[in-house]
């Protein structure tokens, strides 16, 4: 019920998909996130840039609840999810990929995606074995197709090439009905052809599906987003359109100058 209301609100644009206020994360003495305040509209596509160790991944981890923020609040479509465990946030339509692929190496591609579909379905505790024409299996097949992995669908993930594993990461995030996605360097280590493939997948996502993408490759990042947030040493350092960011002399100095772009 609450979700339906939130959805309607979001449709009228009054509620942000993501709303972070003063989010801080400490690892011992290290301040990995320092008072991050950020909002992303539903359907908005945003890149987060920043040098190594800027805290980008940590930010995603706090948003998804992989580990809790030290302080601050996080709202997802208006709902305060700060104290929610990860799975509760996922069940509300948040999805993510990992910078270092976190897959089930011993399972086939299809089974990986099947688990992802199961995770956001009601049958998680089911004791009935899936039939071949099971709705979840069907949707898993569709997803495998969507990320162009049909040929290796029955292959064990451990035997996959790096690029294919990255694509599978994306597929796992697309399971169910995501409302907002977080991509952590999905293009890392991909060949130019695979990058083009990824860009096509991202651009092909339905327009209401907003996302945040961490990406070092400006070519990829700037083609798939409409806004950019720059992070530095755990803080948000600048926000703007891709053009503004690219043109900003300070940014050029700090990031593009000796970044990895």
């Amino acid at each position: 019920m609450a979700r339906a209301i939130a959805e309607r609100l979001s449709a009228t644009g009054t509620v942000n998909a993501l709303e972070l206020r003063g989010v801080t994360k400490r690892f011992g003495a290290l301040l990995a996130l320092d008072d991050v305040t950020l909002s992303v509209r539903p359907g908005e596509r945003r890149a987060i840039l920043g040098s190594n160790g800027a805290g980008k991944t940590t930010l995603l981890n706090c948003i998804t609840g992989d580990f809790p923020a030290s302080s601050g609040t996080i709202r997802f479509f208006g709902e305060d999810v700060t104290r929610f465990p990860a799975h509760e946030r996922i069940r509300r339509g948040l999805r993510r990929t990992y910078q270092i692929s976190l897959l089930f190496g011993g399972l086939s591609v299809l089974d990986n995606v099947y688990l992802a579909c199961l995770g956001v379905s009601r049958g998680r505790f089911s004791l009935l074995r899936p039939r071949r024409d099971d709705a979840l299996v069907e949707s898993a097949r569709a997803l495998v197709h969507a990320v162009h992995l049909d040929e290796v669908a029955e292959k064990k993930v451990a035997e996959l090439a790096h690029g294919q594993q990255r694509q599978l990461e994306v597929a796992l995030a697309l399971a169910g009905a995501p409302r907002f996605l977080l991509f952590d360097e999905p293009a890392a280590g991909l060949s130019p052809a695979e990058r083009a493939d990824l860009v096509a997948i991202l651009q092909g996502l339905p327009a209401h599906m907003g996302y945040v993408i961490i990406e070092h490759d400006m070519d990829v990042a700037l083609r798939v987003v409409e806004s950019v947030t720059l992070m530095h040493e755990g803080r948000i350092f600048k926000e703007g359109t891709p053009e503004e960011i690219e043109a900003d002399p300070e940014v050029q100095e700090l990031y593009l100058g000796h970044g990895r772009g």
Partner: protein
Amino acid sequence: MARAGAMATGEPGAEGGGLARRVERHPLAALLLALAIVLFLWLVLADWPEELERWLGRKRVFVSALFNGITLGGLYFLVATGFTLIFGLMRNVNLAHGSLYLFGGYLAYSTVQATGLWLPSFLVAFVLVAIVGLLLQVLVFRHMEGQELRQTLVTIGLSIVFADLMLWVWGGDFYQIPTPEWLAGPIDTPIVLDVRPNGEAVYLRYPRVRLVIFAASVVIGVLLWLAINKTRVGMLIRAGVDDREMLAASGVPIQLLFALVFAFGAGLAGMAGVVGGTFQSISPGEDTRFLLASLVVVIVGGLGSIPGAALGALLIGLAEQFGSVYLPTYAIVFSFLIMVLVLAFRPQGLLSVR
């Protein structure tokens, strides 16, 4: 995308800056603790009003349960501290720890039988059991580093084998290590238990040996804490607890450190065996009993933390003694309940390091 290496998160003063900070961070817990201490002090020192005696029985019973609990806690601390030290550094849950305790006890018993010397039996127990620990580390655990579960299974196997070997050698009898003369007998404490109608006060008389042993375990605990917090070796150990890879990378002879800590932890268990054999008794089955006591103590106190072991040992010792005095058929439930509560509300243990 090389992931930034793990950070050194040395937090100066987090442990050392101690009391004031803890109190500041947990004002309620500190208050409750202070109240509990005051209450206990009052119960020990005051002349009990009738009303109280009706509730808690004779003051004598209460005070001796308290003393027994605290001294038992001292013994538990001696056993558990080696366990927690070994886990803290090597992530090895040594379920043969109880066997080391019992082995120390038997060794000391045989030493005292043969020579009549009590103090040197500590040395014998410490050294021989430490050697066993050393051998275990070098011959077995070194070859399975990082395989926590397998190491633990090995320690279970070892504990079965040790138990049977000890049964073979020493048989199934109960042994008590005789207390040396200079420690035998009770000591008069200034604690008034009762006032006779004629105005004469009855003082608590308590076994000297238990008090001495308790004092010794406090000294050992403090020394250990100092060694770990103020010396170079201790610093290395703490660094190892926080981040083993970094320690390995920094050129420290980590295997030597592991072997020494394992030997030392085992030796402590052996010495605890002498203590246990002196003020209780040793027999087959005591290995399991003390293994379990160690487990519960470190689960309560926080695995890997020495102050945690001290606190856990005190709590469990007290719970056991008060339980067996006031609710004999449910005594075990008390220690267990403490463990359950800690797991429910602070699963990492009361004073956990991380």
